[in-house]
């Protein structure tokens, strides 16, 4: 790969993604979003959390997946197996779990107190003799396909998934396997709603071109300098529908006083000046494939809606959950190794606050972008070489919709 400073023409974008402007209609159309719901979100594997959130038998989480019109109940059974069910009672459709997390010995519908075992089987029906030939064995909770990769729980809402999770994650799953996700076992979680199409929201996080501009006051100085003023990517890899890139870090960055203090206490996520010295020791070899000394973070996008930003100090995940064609719930988690001292916890907390302020910049910016896109004033958007992941996402979505439309045609 040509080094960042030496590039005078595009080098990251493969020819099959094209070079032309991209239609803006997919980023504002309710009809297009309906097709995405059917042919993408209802078909592919979607990450809903971490296995260690439900470490003990009976631990459960409920994940609202509005884009699939589903409420998913994910629970660890007494046999320690993690299962997912539609959070829907067989009797009259009420939700059997109303809390979004907890520990249960069974699930009981509040409406008429039907009870379900942790493995989904229907246990008790009050006044059962008044039903007409009720087949209790057929009235368990409806299962959802579930699989786990590196501790991440994925669901698939298709009747029969087209691929296993491993096949779906393909080369990206292999590239990231072995990153010490489990070591970074504590996290702070943030959430908010973008008034934007899910792709507009995702796009705000999958390029570095904006970092020196929009984030001038926050993280800009850590990821840009005169050597790389426009936040060019070190590398960009495409794995089927997924993508992975190495983010350049400014090693001449002069931290502000509290950043400096936090660095010295516990170098926070995404800004380690000494990263190159240790980058190749504990990490899978595919991370920082160019072995660039300015490598700071590996950005990974698992299609359609999960980001992992991996660094030496921990990792950040972002999930983007479409609520409508122009509304998206954003959930971020910043994962660290558990702090051992007050000063470490301070450093991590400061990192969380600084990241939150950065994400506020992104959130406000995303809403403004959507307003402009939705106006229809610009029928096309323009993606440059370092926005290759945006172009790739557009192409992948188009491909899924094309294939989905073909598959949906009557034979």
């Amino acid at each position, binding site marked *: 790969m040509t080094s960042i400073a030496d590039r005078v023409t595009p080098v990251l974008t493969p020819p099959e993604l094209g070079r032309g402007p991209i239609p803006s209609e997919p980023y504002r159309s309710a009809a297009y979003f309906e097709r995405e719901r059917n042919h993408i979100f209802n078909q592919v594997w979607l990450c809903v959390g971490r296995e260690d959130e439900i470490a003990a038998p009976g631990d459960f989480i409920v994940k609202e997946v509005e884009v699939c019109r589903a409420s998913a109940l994910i629970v660890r059974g007494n046999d320690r197996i993690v299962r997912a069910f539609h959070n829907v009672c067989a009797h009259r459709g009420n939700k059997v779990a109303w809390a979004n997390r907890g520990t249960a010995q069974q699930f009981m519908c509040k409406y008429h107190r039907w009870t379900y075992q942790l493995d989904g089987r229907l246990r008790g029906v009050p006044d059962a003799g008044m039903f007409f030939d009720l087949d209790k064995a057929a009235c368990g909770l409806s299962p959802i396909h579930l699989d786990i990769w590196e501790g991440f729980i994925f669901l698939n809402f298709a009747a029969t998934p087209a691929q296993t999770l491993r096949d779906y994650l393909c080369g990206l799953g292999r590239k990231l396997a072995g990153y010490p996700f489990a070591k970074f076992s*504590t*996290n*702070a*979680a*943030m*959430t*908010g*709603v973008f008034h934007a199409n899910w792709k507009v929201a995702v796009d705000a996080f999958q390029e570095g071109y904006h970092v020196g501009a929009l984030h001038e*006051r*926050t993280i800009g100085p850590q990821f840009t300098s005169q050597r790389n003023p426009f936040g060019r990517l070190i590398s960009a890899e495409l794995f089927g529908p997924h993508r992975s890139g190495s983010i350049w870090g400014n090693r001449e960055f002069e931290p*502000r*006083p*509290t*950043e400096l*203090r*936090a660095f010295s*206490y516990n170098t926070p996520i995404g800004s380690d000046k000494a990263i190159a010295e240790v980058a190749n020791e504990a990490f899978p070899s595919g991370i920082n494939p160019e072995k660039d000394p300015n490598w700071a973070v590996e950005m990974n996008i698992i299609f359609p809606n999960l980001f992992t930003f991996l660094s030496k100090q921990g990792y950040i995940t972002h999930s983007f959950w479409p609520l409508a064609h122009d509304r998206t719930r954003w959930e971020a*988690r910043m994962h*660290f190794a558990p*702090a*051992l*001292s*007050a*000063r470490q*916890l*301070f450093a*991590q*907390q*400061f990192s*969380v*606050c*600084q990241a*939150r*302020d950065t*994400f*506020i*910049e992104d*959130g*406000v910016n995303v809403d403004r972008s959507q307003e402009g896109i939705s106006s229809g004033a610009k029928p096309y958007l323009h993606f440059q070489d370092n926005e290759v992941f945006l172009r790739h996402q557009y192409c992948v979505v188009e491909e899924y919709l094309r294939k989905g439309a073909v598959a949906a045609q009557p034979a």
Partner: protein
Amino acid sequence: MTQEPIRLPPEFADLNAFAEVWAAPASDARHHQRQIRSLAEIRAFYEAMLPRLDAIFRYLDPLDLATLPVPERQLLYLTFGFGEAALSIELFNAPGVTDSPYPHGFHVVRELREFKNG
């Protein structure tokens, strides 16, 4: 979550008045204080804390985070509040994020470490 009365360890009792504002247990609550105060108020807190931080962490670091007594926990939260103030002073030269409204609708929904009883 009811916040307990502020009672910092005696060595840091001179910071009690600041802690009434800045030592809330929740990230959102500390962030809120930063948003509703003037830059001058934020700076007064920031400058009062700066010369004390080394002493605060020397005091707190030997203690087990899992069993921090209430006064020490409040002192730790006060340093978190300092982090909020530092962002205003060092990054934005304004209380809030540049060109962003408040409330902005973004929330910390799980803290890095949850302490019992706030």
